[in-house]
């Protein structure tokens, strides 16, 4: 009876403090995000993984790189040692991909070819990116007269048929891996520079860049923090697509007799060597280099397509 009386007397004003217990709250915890944040790259990777073709390309290229490094160690044969009595052996337990017109092991030569192709492709692409970013970045960022002059130069270079100049350089300086890469790089960066410039032109007028500028950020900081990260997507896509171009160019040049010379073996050289063989039915000598050239280019192309979709934030669902 007495207790009930007490309760009825209660009002917000006379609730005793000891009825309450304090929950300790960490003030900083309020700031943390409950779900893991999805950065641009994580999101891109998540979307790329959903693209089956692109992932197939990626897996193929990883395997190819692995075999390019370790493949030649798996066989007892040397790339260039000729074994005439054993020429044109079909694929067998001893020679997995058969032997060619000189009795050389096609399996071993294929992975040596992979080394050359991947090396040429990557190095040429990296040089393209390097020159392209500097040229396109300066041209787009400076704008005005500088941009005008730099773009006129690009327009002039654009008209130069790159493969012809490459052939000319190889004829003069002699075919070697170095000359091929140099020749490809001299003419290859133009496309990259155009893309970087276009991106920089667009991004430098966005509000967040203007805001950064109004806070007093210097050019260097703006370029490093805002312009480059935001152009990375198109640059990577362009790079994945310029690698197969370089690989094709190397194979093409090898095919017309201007490619890498022994002791190297490239896919183009192998394809050229086995032209006569297809008429006589020794299909494997042509099939393996042809398959790997085509499939490597295919893998880079589908990966590039996938990256293009994955790295474009506008296509985010």
């Amino acid at each position, binding site marked *: 009876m007495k207790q009930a009386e007490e309760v009825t007397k209660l009002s917000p004003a006379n609730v005793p403090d000891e009825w309450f217990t304090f929950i300790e709250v960490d003030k900083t915890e309020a700031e943390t995000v409950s779900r893991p944040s999805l950065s641009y790259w994580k999101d891109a990777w998540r979307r790329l993984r959903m693209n089956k073709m692109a992932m197939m390309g990626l897996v193929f290229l990883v395997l190819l790189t692995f075999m390019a490094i370790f493949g030649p160690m798996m066989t007892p044969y040397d790339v260039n040692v000729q074994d005439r009595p054993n020429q044109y052996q079909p694929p067998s337990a001893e020679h997995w991909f058969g032997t060619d017109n000189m009795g050389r092991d096609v399996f071993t030569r294929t992975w040596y070819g992979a080394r050359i192709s991947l090396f040429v492709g990557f190095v040429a692409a990296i040089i393209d990116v390097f020159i392209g970013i500097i040229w396109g970045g300066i041209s787009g960022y400076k704008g005005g007269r500088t941009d005008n002059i730099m773009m006129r130069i690009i327009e002039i270079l654009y008209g130069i048929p790159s493969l012809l100049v490459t052939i000319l350089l190889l004829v003069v300086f002699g075919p070697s891996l170095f000359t091929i890469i140099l020749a490809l790089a001299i003419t290859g960066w133009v496309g990259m520079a155009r893309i970087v410039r276009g991106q920089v032109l667009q991004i430098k007028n966005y509000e967040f860049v203007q805001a950064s500028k109004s806070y007093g950020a210097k050019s260097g900081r703006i370029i490093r923090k805002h312009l480059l990260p935001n152009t990375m997507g198109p640059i990577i896509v362009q790079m994945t697509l310029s690698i197969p171009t370089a690989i094709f160019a190397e194979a093409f040049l090898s095919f017309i007799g201007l490619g890498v010379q022994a002791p190297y073996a490239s896919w183009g050289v192998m394809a050229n060597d086995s032209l006569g063989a*297809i008429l006589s039915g020794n299909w494997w000598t042509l099939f393996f280099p042809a398959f790997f050239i085509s499939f490597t280019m295919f893998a880079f192309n589908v990966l590039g397509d996938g990256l293009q979709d994955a790295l474009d934030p506008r296509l985010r669902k």
Partner: protein
Amino acid sequence: MFRYILKRLLIALITLWIIVTITFVLMVSVPGSPFNSEQTSNEAIQANLEAHYNLDKPYHIQYLLYLKSIATLDLGPSIKQPSQTVNDLLGRGFPISFELGMVTIIVAVISGILLGILSALRHNGIIDYLAMGFAVLGISIPNFILATFLIQQLAVNLKIFPVATWSSPMHMVLPVIALATGPMAIIARLTRSSMLEVLTQDYIKMARAKGLSPWKITIKHALRNALMPVVTIMGTLLAGILTGTFVIEQIFAIPGMGKYFVESVNQRDYPVIMGTTVFYSAFLIFMLLLVDIAYGILDPRIKLHKKEGGEG
């Protein structure tokens, strides 16, 4: 429009001049170059060379005279065949290469555009997937690989088409397929993506709302705008087809310019390499110029007074 053409023409001339200069500098710096007498054994050839390149004069005079001979379309003698000049070789080989190139372009453009439209209209349908899968394959397989594959399957095994040479329409089928597949695939992909973009535009909805037939919308409204990007890459495609003819002519034993060019490269017949490079470059630059002008006429956004701004 006139100023635009003039500007393009100027750029084209500068490009050509740079190529001619590069060619000259490279050839002069060749170790054991055609300009050194040890290279040639034949006296008649040596006499031809000296007369044409003025080898007794200093380099800068040689250069100016070389520019002059190019301006007058005299591309010089061959050092491997005494009675031949580069002009002779071009006169014989170029018409054949030109024919091959033109047929290839026509085939590539028509089939590429058709494939692209079909994919865009059946977006994400089975036809779209098939066509685009085919297109990626077409881009990925190098033309010389495709050529050897075609010869092996269709000429040697099935004997449907002749293996090589250039004498009847049947002889043209395989080389043209080998050359046209890559450009066709590129055109198909480009047409498809720009068609897809154009088809979402308001004026297409408007046309549909007006009750125009799908056929008319596609051809008259969508395609015309969707083809602009295709026009822009025609120059690059032409360059690709042109270099493609080198190997294709070699493989199919077609007596065109490309075959002579590869032969001259292998025999290190420097004057022929030089002359052909300059000729090919001039041809390509001229084609690029035509493409640019066509683009200027087709694209209403490029106007006489427009200040150069956007994509350079």
